[in-house]
C-alpha cells in the first residue's frame, strides 16, 4: 500500500468512479428479484444474508480486534428465538426479529463482560466454547425441538424475504459505516485495536467500548437468523448452530478484507460463488470445509489484508490518508 498523498485529479475521478459503481450496485440490488429466476433469487438472498453476517463478524474482529469463534451462535440463537416466539408464543414475525436481535446482544454482553478484558486468546476460547455449548443445549432441550428441530409456518413469497434480508444487511452496513467508520465510536475502536493500553490512557473506556461493539456485532446476526428461520421454515441445531456458520463468516470476512467496510461484502460474493461451483462440480459434501480451511490459512499467509487490500492500488478503495487530503482540497 503506498502511503503517499495521491494526485487529487485521479482521486476525484476515482471518487466519481466509486460513486457510479455504488449507485449501479444499489439499483441492481433493488430490482434483483424482478430480473432473475427463482433459483438465482434464492442464491441472491443467501448472498445478501451472508454479506450481513460477514460484516457482523468484521465488527468484532476487524474493527475491534477480537476473535469470536462462536459468532455463528448468534445467528442460530436468532433463528431459534424467532422460531420459538412465532410457534410457541404466536408473536408476529417483526416482533420476533427484534427479540432475536436483543437476546443475541444481551448474550454477547454476558459473555463479553468477563472475557473482553482479558487477552484475545481467552475471548476466542470462551466464545468458541459458548458456541458449542449453545448447539448442545438446543439439541437437548425439548422446547427447541431437540434434535428434531423446529418447524415454522410456511410463507411462499421469495421476494419478500429477499427484501427483508436486504433491508437488514443494508442496516448492518449503514450502521457499520456511520458508527464504526465515521463516528467517535469508530475512532475509539480503532485506537483500542491498535494499542489498547494507550487508548485507555487517553481516556477511552476500553472495557465499555469493547462490550458495546460486541453487542452490536451480535445484534445483526440475531435478526438475520430470525429471517432465515422464517424463510427456510425448518431449522435444527446442526443447520443453524453448527460451527460451519462461524467458519464461513470468518473466511468471508478475511478473504474480502478484514477491517474494511466492503471487504465482507466482496468476500461473501466470492465465497458463495466458489461454494456453488464446488457443489455443482463435486456434489454437496464436506469437501468445501477443506476449501474453507485452506483459504483461511492461505489468506493469513499471503494476503492478510484480503481482496480489498489487493485492490487498494486500483483506486477503487482508497487508502484513508489520500481521502482526507482530497477532502481538504475539495473542501467537503
Amino acid at each position, binding site marked *: 500500500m503506498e502511503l503517499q498523498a495521491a494526485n487529487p485529479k485521479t482521486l476525484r475521478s476515482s471518487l466519481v468512479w466509486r460513486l457510479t459503481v455504488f449507485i449501479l450496485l444499489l439499483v441492481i440490488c433493488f430490482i434483483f428479484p424482478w430480473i432473475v429466476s427463482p433459483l438465482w433469487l434464492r442464491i441472491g438472498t443467501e448472498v445478501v444474508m451472508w454479506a450481513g453476517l460477514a460484516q457482523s463478524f468484521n465488527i468484532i474482529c476487524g474493527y475491534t480486534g477480537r476473535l469470536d469463534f462462536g459468532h455463528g451462535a448468534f445467528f442460530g440463537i436468532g433463528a431459534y428465538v424467532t422460531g420459538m416466539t412465532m410457534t410457541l408464543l404466536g408473536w408476529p414475525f417483526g416482533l420476533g426479529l427484534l427479540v432475536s436481535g436483543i437476546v443475541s446482544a444481551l448474550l454477547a454482553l454476558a459473555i463479553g463482560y468477563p472475557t473482553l478484558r482479558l487477552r484475545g486468546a481467552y475471548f476466542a476460547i470462551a466464545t468458541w466454547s459458548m458456541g458449542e455449548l449453545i448447539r448442545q443445549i438446543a439439541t437437548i432441550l425439548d422446547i427447541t425441538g431437540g434434535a428434531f428441530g423446529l418447524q415454522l409456518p410456511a410463507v411462499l413469497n421469495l421476494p419478500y424475504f429477499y427484501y427483508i434480508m436486504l433491508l437488514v444487511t443494508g442496516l448492518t452496513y449503514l450502521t457499520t459505516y456511520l458508527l464504526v467508520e*465515521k463516528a467517535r465510536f469508530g475512532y475509539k475502536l480503532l485506537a483500542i485495536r*491498535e494499542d489498547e493500553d494507550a487508548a485507555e490512557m487517553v481516556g477511552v473506556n476500553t472495557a465499555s467500548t469493547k462490550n458495546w461493539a460486541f453487542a452490536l456485532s451480535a445484534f445483526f446476526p440475531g435478526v438475520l437468523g430470525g429471517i432465515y428461520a422464517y424463510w427456510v421454515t425448518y431449522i435444527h441445531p446442526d443447520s443453524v448452530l453448527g460451527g460451519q456458520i462461524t467458519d464461513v463468516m470468518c473466511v468471508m470476512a478475511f478473504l474480502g478484507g478484514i477491517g474494511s467496510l466492503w471487504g465482507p461484502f466482496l468476500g461473501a460474493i466470492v465465497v458463495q460463488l466458489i461454494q456453488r461451483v464446488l457443489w455443482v462440480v463435486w456434489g454437496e459434501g464436506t469437501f468445501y470445509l477443506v476449501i474453507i480451511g485452506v483459504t483461511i490459512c492461505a489468506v493469513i499467509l499471503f494476503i492478510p489484508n484480503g481482496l480489498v487490500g489487493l485492490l487498494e492500488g486500483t483506486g477503487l478503495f482508497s487508502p484513508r490518508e489520500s481521502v482526507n487530503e482530497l477532502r481538504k482540497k475539495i473542501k467537503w
Partner: protein
Amino acid sequence: MILQSHDLVKSFGGVTAVDHLSLEVEKGSVFGIIGPNGSGKTTFFNLINGVYPPTSGTITFNGRNITGLRPHQIAELGIGRTYQVPAPFSKMTVLENVMVSTFMRTSSLRESRKVAWEILERVGLDEKGDTLVANVTLEDRKRLELARALGTRPHLLLLDEVMAGLTPSEINEAIELIRSLRTGELTIIVVEHIMAVILSLCDRIAVLDYGEKIAEDVPDKVVNNPNVIKAYLGERYSARN
C-alpha cells in the same frame, strides 16, 4: 498539593520496584524525578496512572484518593502521561491520534477536530496533521505523545524521559516547549536522565534509588547531596571525593 503518594509500595514477585515512597508535588510547579536505571521511576508513573495497582499505600490527586482506579478514569480526573517509547495509534493520522484523546472533553467530532488542530499547532505538528503516523520521525512522535497527553486537558502532566533519543538541538526545542506549557494551571512531573534538562526545568527534584527516595530538594542542593552522588557514581567515587 496537587499530588501526594503515601507510603507507596509496588512489588513484582520478589522485586520491590517502589519501596515506601512518599512524595508531594505542589500545584503549578515542575517536579523532577531522577535516579539510576531501575530505580522505580517508570513504575511510579505507572502507579499514578493506574496501569497497575500498588501493593500497598495510596495516591491522592487534588484531595481525592485515586488508588486502584482504572487508567481511563484517572485520565478523566486530569492526569495525562507520555511514554518513553512513543506508542501512537498506527493506522491513524497524527490529527486523528490527538482527536481520540480529546473525546473525553468534547461533545462532537467537529469540536474534537478543532481542539486537536489547536493542540497540534501548540506543539508544532500542525503541518503533519494529515500524515499517517507510520511516516513520521521520532522527534515528531514525541511531540505527538505530548499532544495526545494534552488532548485530555490534564491538570497534571507526567513526562517519562521525553528527551531520550533526541539530538541536542531537539532537546533545546523540547525544553522550550515544556517551558511554554507552564501557565500556572498545569503541574508537570518530569522523569529524566539528562541533568542539564532537569536543572533548567525543575523547581524541585526527588531522587530515587532502588525504589526508595533518597533525596528531595531544590536542584542545587540535590546535585551536591552526597547520597545522590553515591547512588549514581558508586561508593568508591564518593569516598575518594
